[in-house]
Structures are given as structure tokens and as C-alpha cells.
């Protein structure tokens, strides 16, 4: 296979600034040279390649929109979206690793944390010296986090946390967990440190999706957290939901990266694979599939770019993100399935990218708001009538 060729059917390139293109190209080069050659073995083994962590920190992809004084790069949202696209071209597990760190750990510390919390955590999270995770989902509460059972009870100057969180990316390898718990005054956010007594994060195994990503359970049994480790500016569910809006924004871009990878692989394969004495790409059935996929990728790219520009103008709403996350992930999942089919038997080999992307996107479709929940969010926005219950 030749080097990755990113689909850009409508010259969206020309809509990007020079620094946005440079950021994208830097991440694209790193992913192609350093990550794509090793990811399939990690996917097979069910491990995340921890050796890339300092390289990611040096590259600057952790929390790149955070201001420079806290260790970020001060990038705009479009550049961040392009980073997510390129990372997920490598693997959804890689994009998840970075999304959680930036959008779900650094963002809440930056947006809801005290100055001391920002100074302590943000620089080491930006460099990758520390890894963080985000504990909201529970075994019985995913789409309706308001029903969470994890509690935080005041005890003098401290809080006592009890409960369980599930499906937590990076839980087992984190130095800090942003844990959301119910208090007498509503939901609050806490920074739970690695090694705190009563706190453990066993890894969840036997996944067939996001295999190159660590997924964990967080167990909190009378974990004592000082008031200084509570996020002072987070009150109620809008705290965690604000973080999720950031992460979902990155996913709207990221899923396209997986689709672009699969599309390019299938297109190259179909050009080389001879069936009935001519390339697979020369058949009408194949061409219709490519035309349909190129259309969806292009429309998704335009939507993501528009979403990014809205975010940079301060005009992005959660329902905008819902529309783009819902569409781009669903379309990308369908595209990877089609590409898997076009690759024939090779499509199930881990030596090809597509099957891995296809399996990963099943998780991406579910996490950060399922397809159906985003459907209801858009429906709510359009009709004014909530239909969640």
C-alpha cells in the first residue's frame, strides 16, 4: 500500500489556515511514522503502546487548546479537531487516550478548578508525565448520569467518596481521576489521586473494540478526598456535561479520520486487486460504493469544519455537537463496514487498518452520548419537547 492519501474532494484544504494545516501535518506525519506501524500488534494483544506517551506530550497533543501558561499550545478548535482526525486515522484508542486527557481531565481542571489545581496538574498532564481519567458512567447509569449512585459525604474538611464507575478510559494508568459524585447539594467533581486509600482501578478485559486502549472500572470505598481536591467551580450535572461537549466535539472530527483511513485503504486495494481480469475499482458496484462514501466523508468534513468555526466564534451549542457527532460517527461506522466488505478476506486481517477501525467505531458510536441519545437531543432542540423519558 502507498502512503495514506487523505480524501479532500471539495478542496477543504483551502479553507484552513497555514498553522491549522501545519498542526494537522505534524500529527499526520507522527501517526504515520510512529503509530500506524505498531498499533495492530497492540490491538491484537489488548494493550495501549505506553511508549508513545512522552512522544505525544512532546508533540503537544494533550490539551492543546489550553493556554500556554498552563502548558498547552493555545491552538484554536479547528486545529484541535484536525488533531483528533489524524489521531483517529491511527486508531480510535489513540484518539480516546488524547481526548480523555485533554477534554475530560484538563478541560474540567482548567474550567472548574482552583488556581492551585491548575498549576499543579495542567503542566504535567500537558507533558504526559501524568495521565488522567474521567469517572462519570456507572454500571447502571450511562445515558442518564443524573441517576448516579456514587456519593460524596462531608466529613470535617474532607469528603468521603463511595461508589463504582465503569468503562473508564485510562483508569488503570492514571495519576488522577476526575470523579463525579452526588452530594447533598447536587453533583460535584473531585480529583481522586492514584494510590488514595480505598481507591482502585481494575482493568476491564475481553473487549473486541478499542482493544488498543485501557478501559477500567473505578472502585471507591470510603475514599477520603480533601476539600482542596474538589473542583470548586463545578456545580450540578452541567459540570460533567460541559466536559462531554468538548470531547464529543473532538469525536465529530475523529470518526472521520477512521473513515478516511478505511476509504483510502479500500480505494488503493480496489485499484490493485484484479478480479475477472480487471481492477475491482473498475466495476460499477465498487464505484457506487466509493461515490457514496466520498460523499459522506466530504459532507462530514464540511460539517466538522463549520462546527469548529462556530466553536472558535463562541457560538457552538451542545445540539450542534450532537448533530455532528451523531452523523459523523454513524456514517464513519457504515463506511468502515463497506470498506471491510470491499477488502474481501483481507478485511478481517489486522494487517489492514479497516477491520480495526470498524470494531473501534462500535464503541465510539456508544460512548460520549449514544447515537439514539443524540437523536433525542436534536429532536428536543427542534421541537422544544424532551422525549428522553
Amino acid at each position, binding site marked *: 500500500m502507498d502512503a495514506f492519501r487523505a480524501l479532500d474532494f471539495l478542496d477543504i484544504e483551502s479553507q484552513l489556515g497555514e498553522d491549522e494545516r*501545519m498542526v494537522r501535518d*505534524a500529527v499526520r506525519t507522527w501517526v504515520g511514522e510512529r503509530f500506524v506501524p505498531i498499533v495492530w500488534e497492540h490491538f491484537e494483544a489488548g494493550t495501549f503502546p505506553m511508549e508513545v506517551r512522552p512522544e505525544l506530550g*512532546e508533540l503537544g*497533543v494533550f490539551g492543546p487548546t489550553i493556554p*500556554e501558561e498552563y502548558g498547552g499550545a493555545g491552538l484554536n478548535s479547528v486545529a484541535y479537531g484536525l488533531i483528533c482526525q489524524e489521531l483517529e486515522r491511527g486508531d480510535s484508542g489513540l484518539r480516546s487516550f488524547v481526548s480523555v486527557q485533554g477534554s475530560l481531565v484538563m478541560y474540567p481542571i482548567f474550567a472548574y478548578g482552583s488556581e492551585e489545581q491548575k498549576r499543579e496538574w495542567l503542566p504535567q498532564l500537558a507533558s504526559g508525565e501524568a495521565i488522567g481519567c474521567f469517572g462519570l458512567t456507572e454500571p447502571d447509569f450511562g445515558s442518564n448520569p443524573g441517576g448516579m449512585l456514587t456519593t460524596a459525604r462531608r466529613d470535617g474538611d474532607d469528603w468521603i467518596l463511595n461508589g463504582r464507575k465503569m468503562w473508564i478510559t485510562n483508569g488503570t494508568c492514571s495519576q488522577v481521576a476526575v470523579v463525579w459524585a452526588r452530594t447533598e447539594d447536587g453533583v460535584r467533581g473531585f480529583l481522586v489521586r492514584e494510590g488514595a486509600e480505598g481507591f482502585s482501578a481494575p482493568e476491564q478485559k475481553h473487549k473486541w473494540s478499542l482493544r488498543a486502549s485501557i478501559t477500567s472500572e473505578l472502585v471507591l470505598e470510603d475514599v477520603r478526598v480533601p476539600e482542596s481536591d474538589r473542583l470548586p467551580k463545578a456545580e450540578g450535572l452541567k459540570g460533567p456535561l460541559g466536559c462531554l461537549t468538548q470531547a464529543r466535539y473532538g469525536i465529530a472530527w475523529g470518526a472521520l479520520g477512521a473513515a478516511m483511513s478505511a476509504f483510502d485503504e479500500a480505494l488503493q486495494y480496489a485499484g490493485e486487486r484484479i478480479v475477472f481480469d480487471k481492477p475491482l475499482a473498475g466495476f460499477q458496484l465498487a464505484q457506487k460504493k466509493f461515490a457514496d462514501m466520498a460523499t459522506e466523508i466530504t459532507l462530514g468534513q464540511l460539517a466538522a469544519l463549520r462546527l469548529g468555526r462556530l466553536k472558535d466564534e463562541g457560538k457552538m451549542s451542545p445540539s450542534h455537537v450532537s448533530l455532528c457527532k451523531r452523523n459523523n460517527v454513524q456514517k464513519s461506522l457504515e463506511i468502515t463496514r463497506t470498506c471491510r466488505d470491499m477488502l474481501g478476506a483481507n478485511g478481517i486481517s489486522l494487517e489492514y487498518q479497516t477491520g480495526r477501525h470498524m470494531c473501534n467505531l462500535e464503541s465510539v458510536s456508544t460512548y460520549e452520548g449514544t447515537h439514539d441519545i443524540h437523536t433525542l437531543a436534536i429532536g428536543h432542540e427542534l421541537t422544544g419537547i424532551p422525549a428522553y423519558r
Partner: protein
Amino acid sequence: MNIVACIKRVPLTETQAKVSADGTSLDATGVEYMTSFYDEIAVEEAVRTKEKSGGEVTILTIGSAGSSKEMRECIAKGGDKGLILVDEDWMARDCRSTAKALAAKIRELGADLVFTGRLATDRDNAAVGPMLATLLDWACVTDVIEVEIGDGKGTAVRESEGGVENYEFTLPAVICCQKDLNEPRYAGLKGIMAAKKKPLDEAPLEAEASQAEVVRLELPPARPEGRIVGEGPDAVDALMDALRNEAKVL
């Protein structure tokens, strides 16, 4: 130390070259560009030298006004400033004219040390570096795989046919970098943002006309189609015969 790294913008390595209608240049339609591979090594060595010995790195190129992307990338990797000598005829300019223009500018910049790639990956001339040193009357080591810069002098290891040559030289000098000298760093995102604030200037190129002119470009002849002489052990005799009597390689 005042360090200059010279770079050239070249078509991406995987570009399928097409000759344009005039027959003397490459068709630039749809061609994307990159910093020449060996020049990236030159930039990396310049930045490492600065990090060790202090000073400033200027990235210098001759190119069209649009070649800022490659320059910004080099600045993002640790260069302090960039200067494009603007020349819309940059692709056709010959080595002598290029070296003379660069030498004049390097003298004006007051450089102590210049790094170049061993060659640019478009024409593979490997001439500008040594010409530059000759015009400046400076020391020059080519195909360098190791270099140490000290106070007013340096040592270098040069790769040569079947061995290595060890050099001592005095500054100022021109070092032409071979691929094993270092592994260029990736442009980090902070570096990219910082590069936006560093100076990237343009100045008109003051150069003599080229003395060497490309009069015709030709692509290599298409490779003749292969021939299968048979299958399995039965084909060995026919293959040996073809190798001996047609290809005459045995």
C-alpha cells in the same frame, strides 16, 4: 554562534513527475512540496548546535513567496528566524547562480557556520554546499555523519566509499549533512504556534543568470513488460537460457 541552515523546497518524494508542455520543466500542477530530506537533517543539526553552544539559527532558502509553509515548519523545529530570497524561477536556477546568491546573503548575515543537506532530492546535484564554501573561502566537509563544534573549530566524520574520513576544521565552515547525522525532530504544536511569532522575512533575490540551462527533460523509458517463461522446475532451462543469451547477465 550565528548559524545558518539552507533548505530547498522540493516535490514530495512520492510525486509522479510529469514533464510540462515546454519540455524543459516539471509540470507543477497538483504537485505538493516538502523540505528536502537532507535539508531537514541540516536544520536539526543547526538547532542541536544552537542548543549546545548557544546562538541563533536562521533558515535560508531561495524560493517562491509561497514557500513559507516549509520555512515555518523549520522554524517550528527550532529555527529562530527565516529568510526567503524570492525567486519565481527557483526551480530552474542552476547551482552556481544559487550558491553565489546564498554566499552573498550568508556573508551579509555574518554567519559562523552553515549547514546544508548533502544534496536536494529534486536534482541530486550535491553541488551547492561545496560551491558555497568555495565562494566564501570557508572550510567544507561533505557527507557528514558526525560533527562536533568547539570554540572556533570543529571535528567531523565524513562517509566515503568503503570507510570514513575524520576531519578537523576551523570556523567559519560549511557542513553538508548525510542521513546518519541525526534524526530530525517532529515539529511540536507549541513550536508551530511559536513559529507564527518568529520573523519570516522575504527579500528579492539578487543573482546572476544561470549559466547552465535545462534544454530538455525526459522521463525514463517505460520498463518493458516482463515475460513468464514457464512454471515450476520445467521452466528452469528456459529461464537459464533467457538469462544467459537474452539478458546476458550470467
